[in-house]
């Protein structure tokens, strides 16, 4: 499973846990805040991905700009994965 699939799977898990419905399909330019997860959902997603992947880019990287779209979110994880 590649990183994108792992993130989408974790999003699904968090959505089920939080009684949220994800939008279908999530496109590269879909705004994160319109994916169906709220702010608590994203914090849960980051915590879940930390367990799955072993890192949390929001803590480890000095992120200049917060991600707005799915592509930007994925890029931050990709960058952190490359640094590991």
């Amino acid at each position: 499973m590649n990183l994108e699939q792992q993130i989408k799977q974790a999003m699904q898990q968090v959505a089920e846990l939080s009684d949220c419905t994800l939008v279908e399909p999530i496109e590269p330019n879909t705004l994160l805040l319109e994916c169906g997860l709220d702010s608590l959902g994203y914090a849960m997603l980051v915590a879940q991905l930390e367990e799955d992947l072993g890192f949390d880019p929001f803590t480890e990287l000095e992120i200049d700009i917060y991600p707005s779209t799915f592509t930007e979110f994925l890029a931050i994880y990709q960058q952190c994965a490359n640094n590991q």
Partner: protein
Amino acid sequence: MQSLEQQLNNLPKTGVMIYEGESCAVSELLKKAGEIRQQNPQLRQRDIAIGYTNLAEFVTALIAFDGWCSAIYLCPPKVPTPQKELIKWPLSADVVVDNSIRKPLDPISSDVLQTTWYMATSGTTGQPKWFAHSFSSLSISTKHSQKLQALCWALLYQPFRFAGLQVVLQALLSCADLVDAADYEPLALMARLKHHKVTAISATPSLWRQLLMTGQLAETNLKHITLGGEIADQSVLAKLSRLFPKAKLRHIYASTETGVGLVVSDGLAGFPAQWLGDSSLPVVLKVSDKQHLLVKPSFHVCHSLTAQTDKQGYVDTQDTVEIKDNRVLFMGRSTGTINVGGNKVHPEKVEQVLLQCPDINQAKVYAKKSALMGALVVADITIIDNDDQQQVKQQVLKICKNQLQRFEIPTKINVVNDIAHDPSGKINRKSNGKQQHD
């Protein structure tokens, strides 16, 4: 001592309140407040519970009753009022005010009373705790100037909570405009902020991160940026400072219990260590042996804090601090209270709910650090039959969803072998090492 109304009467009447698609000038609210008092003389010197309907009515009630009533209780919806005789405002049509319990009337009826303002904070058991304040203590840090008058504030907190009331009073007493923007989702909130050309915002660091995530914050022209309600970390302060280099950036440490608010405006997390022991500040600060922040305000604190007050008058805020590189940094609550994006969660309350699940032996709830929300709620549980882990987790989640607010529900439930207790039998809250089964 002046009442809220008297202070407003001495200031320019330029402010406008914008709420629910309507707007109302502060001069109009002052007029309505006068009418309320005229029509309800029986409310003089009484204790009033102000319920929340909308921003304009709420502010009108504050103006009408401060200096006129003995006490006002700012009641959040669904929160039970204290067990005492209170008149509920707005009055319902069928209510008859019992005059037999009225306190003796002040002979000079135009005198301004020292009204006690009571505000609720969530207690450990889920029951609210009420803390007493006064208009003068609540407005100690509010200012008026030409510059401040030109601002347009957004109200992102509920106005009957401490942080929200601070924003309301700041906007009112600086004669600025105030837009009610509480309880909006980030994208809708962003649209509202842009539409009303908001220039001043006070929000939690978590909410600021969400606004940054919209990618649209730069489209506003923010001049005043305030962070409060949870610990402001250097990362969010730096991002906001980069985006709005000319804006006034402040983070506030406030304690609802003591009514104390500290304002830090140098753009760095925590506050300067030189502030400790500085008696020229409105609040004298000290760090205890247990690394708790102690405060000694210039005004009287609520009598319910006596147990937390030492002989010199310092109140233990129960906030743990660390001194590093000449800064006093906040580390969290010593009580174990978890701050999820500005919402308080009491671990004991969540543990009680978890233990309602018959398959759970023990439960321990604690915080997991989150770069986005400050902290998340996590639970360790021990269960009777380890073969049923998934089933128990689902069952307990169902119980939680029925009884807890969303931010209180554990975001992760770990099944562990054992939960450490200290010698007195209490859960050891200092160690959060999980020994997971799964």
